[in-house]
């Protein structure tokens, strides 16, 4: 048989090494790693801000910080956690996993992928540097409501620029995800055969593209109101400050789903693996995700029931919000049904996934309470809202990220993590987070307002309890960092499939996967 002449060539440029490898990275795995490391750093920075907040709130009165600095911490904590920790973490997962799950060699636009990551460190350096500027960082809340936010000192234009940079990064990431999923699926990988994580990311990217210009336009109008004499949101000039709230939440509510839909995808991958059963109701999961995405465009008004809306508006937003419970309920039902009579084992990723299902549902139910317009008049701007969205974003989004990290870490590093330490991390997290956020429901129902550094004496016990939970949860994350570093450096060799019940193309690759995935076309069943 005749064969081609095989030549080993040395004249290729040597692979980049050291820092240059990461600066010039176009490989989806390298960029995924960069995103994940960046988001972990941001998670720790945002977490430190949260601990400053909880230290101040441990007792009534002012102990550690000034009210102005306290407000800077609440604002920065939210901006860092939303745009610096959760969103980049899911983009990191998307980069690592989507090509491997759909049988593609890489992302569709690798150079753009590099730019979309490297904008982020500059954006957040800029944002964090505002804390050291005259007048301090932004203190008007992450929602940047005018006219309060226009009182920000020198930091204001830098904050707006950093928000634009984060937006550009997100949009480029979303374009890449869409182009990759649509064009680069392996032969046989039809849309309805795609893993749910890929589906949820496709819908998330769609949402991102649809709403990001609204945020960009909104913050630009703040800038022109402050520096160029326009009156978009200035009542004295004929503008309407409430309109900013409409604009912000038209972006902001889909943004919530941008942070939670990929989490649904992660959980839908993990539960079937450890229940050793296929996912119950795959197609209903896809349609439920799409329905949630659609509904996210028409519920923004529930964030502003108390601004003085016509009754018809209150009713519309109330019922539209309640409808979201239906597709979300379908998802929870499907996860539980997947576990039903499954041959379940409880490794750390599964523990985080089960905790997600239970605790996210608590967040969902408190969301339903907040959706009831007349009740919301009491809950508005209280700690009940803080408790609600932290149950959604911490025990929802962050727990799913932890589950994802433990689930795919052996695949990424080629080493098994320390299961015992993983379980200790899980239990410390789940206990800490409930001590932290559950009492905040009671504080809110009793009338404690959010975003205040001092409070009335009757709130003291629950606040002290909440702060203790914060420190347990916060410091237990250092254990997670240790586990990740330990797994990268050593540990039992992971098999290619890693988990007995794991299904999907990524598990057909070696652990860790080769630099170029799928040098032969994968078989899709």
């Amino acid at each position, binding site marked *: 048989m005749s064969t081609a002449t*095989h*030549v080993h060539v040395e004249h290729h440029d040597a692979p980049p090494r050291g820092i240059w490898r990461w600066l010039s990275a176009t490989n989806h795995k390298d960029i995924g790693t960069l995103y994940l490391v960046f988001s972990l750093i941001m998670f720790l920075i945002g977490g430190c801000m949260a601990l400053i907040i909880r230290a101040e709130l441990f007792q009534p009165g002012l102990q550690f910080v000034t009210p102005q600095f306290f407000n800077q911490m609440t604002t920065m904590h939210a901006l860092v956690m939303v745009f610096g920790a959760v969103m980049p973490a899911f983009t990191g997962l998307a980069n690592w996993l989507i090509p491997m799950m759909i049988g593609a*060699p890489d992302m569709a636009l690798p150079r753009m992928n590099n730019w979309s990551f490297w904008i982020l460190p500059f954006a957040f350096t800029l944002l964090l540097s505002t804390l050291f500027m005259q007048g301090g960082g932004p203190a008007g809340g992450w929602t940047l409501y005018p006219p309060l936010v226009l009182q920000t000192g020198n930091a204001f234009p830098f904050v707006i620029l950093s928000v634009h940079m984060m937006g550009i990064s997100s949009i480029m990431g979303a374009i890449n995800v869409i182009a990759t999923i*649509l064009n*680069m699926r392996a032969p046989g990988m039809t849309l309805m055969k795609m893993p749910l994580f890929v589906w949820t990311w496709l819908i998330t990217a769609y949402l991102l*593209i649809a709403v990001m210009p609204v945020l960009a336009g909104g913050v630009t109008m703040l800038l022109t109101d402050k520096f160029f004499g326009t009156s978009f949101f200035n009542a004295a000039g004929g503008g309407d400050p409430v309109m900013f709230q409409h604009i912000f939440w038209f972006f902001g509510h889909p943004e919530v789903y941008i942070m939670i839909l990929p989490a649904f995808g992660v959980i839908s991958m993990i539960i079937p693996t450890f229940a050793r059963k296929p996912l119950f109701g795959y197609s209903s999961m896809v349609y439920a995700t799409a329905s949630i995405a659609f509904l996210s465009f028409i519920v923004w008004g529930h964030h502003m029931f108390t601004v003085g809306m016509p009754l018809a508006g209150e009713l519309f937003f109330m019922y539209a919000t309640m409808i979201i419970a239906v597709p979300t309920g379908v998802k929870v039902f499907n996860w539980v049904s997947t576990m039903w009579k499954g041959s379940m084992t409880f490794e750390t990723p599964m523990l985080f996934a089960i905790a997600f299902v239970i605790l996210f549902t608590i967040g969902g139910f408190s969301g339903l309470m907040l959706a009831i317009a007349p009740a919301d008049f009491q809950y508005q701007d209280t700690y009940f809202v803080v408790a609600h969205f932290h149950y959604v974003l911490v025990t929802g989004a962050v727990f799913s990220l932890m589950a994802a990290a433990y689930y795919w870490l052996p695949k990424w590093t080629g080493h098994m993590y320390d299961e015992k330490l993983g379980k200790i991390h899980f239990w410390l997290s789940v206990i800490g987070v409930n001590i932290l956020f559950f009492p905040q429901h009671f504080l809110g129902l009793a009338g404690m307002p959010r975003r205040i550094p001092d409070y009335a004496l009757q709130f003291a016990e629950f606040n002290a309890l909440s702060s203790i939970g914060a420190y347990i949860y916060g410091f237990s994350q250092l254990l997670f960092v240790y586990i990740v570093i330990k797994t990268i450096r050593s540990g039992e060799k992971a098999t290619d499939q890693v988990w007995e019940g794991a299904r999907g193309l990524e598990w057909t690759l070696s652990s860790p996967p080769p*630099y170029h995935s799928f040098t032969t076309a994968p078989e899709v069943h």
Partner: protein
Amino acid sequence: MVDIQQHADTLQCRFVLRPNRSLSWRGSLLFYFSLLIISSGIAIGLTLLGFWPVLPFAGLEMLALGIGLYVVACRCYECEVISINGDSIRIERGRDYPREQWTLGRMWARVVLERCPRAWYPSRLLIRSHGRSVEVGRFLDEEERQRLADELTRSLRPALVGNL
């Protein structure tokens, strides 16, 4: 993917090389316009309410998305045709029509598969003749490239044997 058309009597052979693509051009357009309608609907609505700065951002974003999808779609529609005739090898590359073409002498042609020892870079398949060399099948995966290299070598061999 590689499509091979071979004529046993004439020793003529044609290889049509196409990258994997999972979405048709029509599908790309459909997806793009669905997003365009939603995004521009939102932006135009806000513009009509007086909040026009949303519009340029939406426009820029849709432009970026359009370029991204177009570039990827074009790459997916790239095609290479290698035709081996009596004493020549013709290589054409393009999408709707041959944008680039080369003609190499069949008698002196050699198929070379260059591999980087570190597996950092993908292999390169070259057809060399008379000091000229043309790379083909860049968009194929390793297995396809290897198979193509073997098939090309086999197709060139009869001419070499006959010549001897």
